[in-house]
């Protein structure tokens, strides 16, 4: 089964995303911010990344940019969590190389729908 990383500084969002994905049978790796994610991803290849944008240390956009520079993550689907008020951030994320986005708040079924869409 595919392995997915969730990156979020909010423990509750991480928990919700991670429970949803585990419930659908995916393996889940958690990271608290961009830095943590990069460190974990260099040792452990995942099939998809779901990341928040606003995080301390390294935000989601920088994480996407850095991941796309790695050979292993050049073509891996990356989904960013955005809010409606962040149209410009969404564009920044896309420019950095995000595959798609989910607007917060979202329901578990929506998250799974997006995963299916980009991961197959």
């Amino acid at each position: 089964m595919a392995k997915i990383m969730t990156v979020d500084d909010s423990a509750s969002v991480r928990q919700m995303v991670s429970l949803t994905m585990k419930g659908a049978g995916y393996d889940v790796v958690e990271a608290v911010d961009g830095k943590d994610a990069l460190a974990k991803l260099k040792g452990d290849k995942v099939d998809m990344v779901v990341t928040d944008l606003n995080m301390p240390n390294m935000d989601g956009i920088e994480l996407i940019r850095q991941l796309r520079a790695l050979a292993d993550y050049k073509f891996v689907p990356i989904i960013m969590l955005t809010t409606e008020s962040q149209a410009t951030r969404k564009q920044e994320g896309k420019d950095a190389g995000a595959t798609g986005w989910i607007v917060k708040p979202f329901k578990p079924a929506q998250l799974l729908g997006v995963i299916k869409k980009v991961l197959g």
Partner: protein
Amino acid sequence: MSVEIDTSAFTEEAYELLSELEDSLLELEESPGDQELIGRVFRAMHTIKGSGAMFGFDAVAEFTHEVETVFDMARNGTISVTKELINLTLAARDQIRAILDAAGGGSPANEENAQRIIAGLRGLVPGAGGGAAGGAAAAKGKGKKPVVEAGPHSYRIRVKPHADIFANGTNPILLLNELREMGESRIIALTDDLPDIGALDPEQCYLSWEVFLTTEKDENAIQDVFIFVDDECDVNVRLLDREENLSTDAEPKKLGQILVERGDIDQEDLEEALQPLGDRLVDAGVVGKDQIRAALTEQQLVQEKREKKKKAEAATSVRVPSDKLDNLVDLVGELVTVQARLNQTSASVGDHDLQLISEEVERLTAELRDNTMSIRMLAIGTTFNKFKRLVRDLSLELGKKIEMTTEGAETELDKTVIDQLNDPLVHIIRNSIDHGVENPKDRLAAGKPEEGLIHLAAVHSGASVLISVADDGKGLDPQFLKRKAIEKGILPPDVELTDKEAYQLIFGAGFSTAEKITNVSGRGVGMDVVRKSIDALRGQIDVQSELGKGTTITLKLPLTLAIIEGLLVEIAHDFFVLPLAAVEECVELSRDRVANAHGRHVINVRDEIVPYIRIRDRFGIEGESPEIEQIVISEVDDKRVGFVVDRVIGQHQTVIKNLGKNFEHSEEFSGATILGDGTVALILDLQKMVRFVQHEEAEENSGGE
């Protein structure tokens, strides 16, 4: 789907974030220009809002959204961090805390206070207050096209990804698959842009696609597939089957016309190349081969749709009352009979010309008969659908979870058979729901999925149709059935039964295995009704069961009731017809074999003892039986039984005539038929005859004890 999530994780985190927010705000008061601090405040509120909404704290989310919107502007530098902003944000922080406390059982938060804070924050925004919040809502409704009328529509979707689409981790194949799942599709890859292998950059996308999709979904749903690739992919969706495209009078569009309409070529290109069109266009380099292929597919699609429409129109145009059809079938029956006479007569006259005509009439009659029968054939699907409702309602009533699946709904059967099949099937399915499938608790305990399954299937098998009702319930227990039967005095205590015979007990009159009477089994209808109806249809019932795994009841029914394939036999000068479906073989019965059996009516056929019934004795037909008689061995109720006749004449296609009121009590006959020379032959009901004889013997035995 639903995921149960503990909200305490959120409240805990929110309290933590709030105290962090307080610290950051106080620090920010000291150094109002610190971007890092502003970022921290924004993030804290952003998280509270986002997870608040996800965990069902809508009040928190709504309120925080207002605060966040204003603070976002501070972050962008649209407004500066003032003492007033900090004061209001601190007040907002306390308000969020109050809302959380209220949700946790504290006193309700002060709504006026919230309004005052929001109003104050909005007042800080230059220009119209609250404009930011309105913008997002307005953006939602943009770009939606008017919805077209319902029903499946055909679309042409051009998907042209930009060369760098892979850089965003997008896999275009998944997008195509998504379209594919929406309905019936044909996808054509346009490979004309593909460079030579040497020049090919594997990280670039050179392909584009034309998708022809027939779907119930509307254009918005198609556009939604491409929501993430707005910037990386050109998508063009066009509805193909507008009325003018489908109206059956208009000429289908020509290839050139389609190409022009699609903008692949212009009218001049078309006129220049108008003779061998596709090839010329390719030669001229105006369009690629793939584009021609795509256009041809489009043309074909529209044509096919139109064909379908035509067919549908034609199919709905005949409606005939069924009694007219019944009349027609009767007449064809008469014709078949007369034709048999013609055959016989022409054979005996020996006139070559007459024989030729007779053969021609025979061919036409057979065709006419088959056609007439096929008119009365109906798909069993509508009956199946009725049962879906039945299963749904009954399982609900009994507190069971049952899913019904069907197979072979298109199987055709004579209308009269379908009509008479309804009741027995209802009983069988009821029985499965009530006695077969266990309640959810027992199923889980037995290691089965909570939801039971009833599978209804119909399939053709030779001149019969097999209809089976299978459940994955607890199965039949042959020992239990036997015990019940003995308790009720249906069977003697020392009876020996095979499992198969035990299963047949459920069809006995007054036999109920239900331990308690439920609403369903208390309706006063038993499985014996099933047997009676299936007998009347000249069908057979087969029961397969495995204890703990489930039961399958299979009905074997003739395709039609009006005509049967029979075996014509003769006793003295009387003719009888045995249904050919039951006949297995014919063997000779010589006088010395009868003598060897010492008065018992059995015969040894290849080391198998087969009981037989002498029809001559049974009907009291006078006269001497021939030296060598014939035994027609048939399968009746899963047992082999022989019927002794004088002579086997041969296969005979029989049109069944009712015997009429005078003979309605002669149960051993299911009807009569008229032979070619006008003689009447009776059609034997083998099952009834066997049961009759068994019954008589049982009475004799008990009377003798």
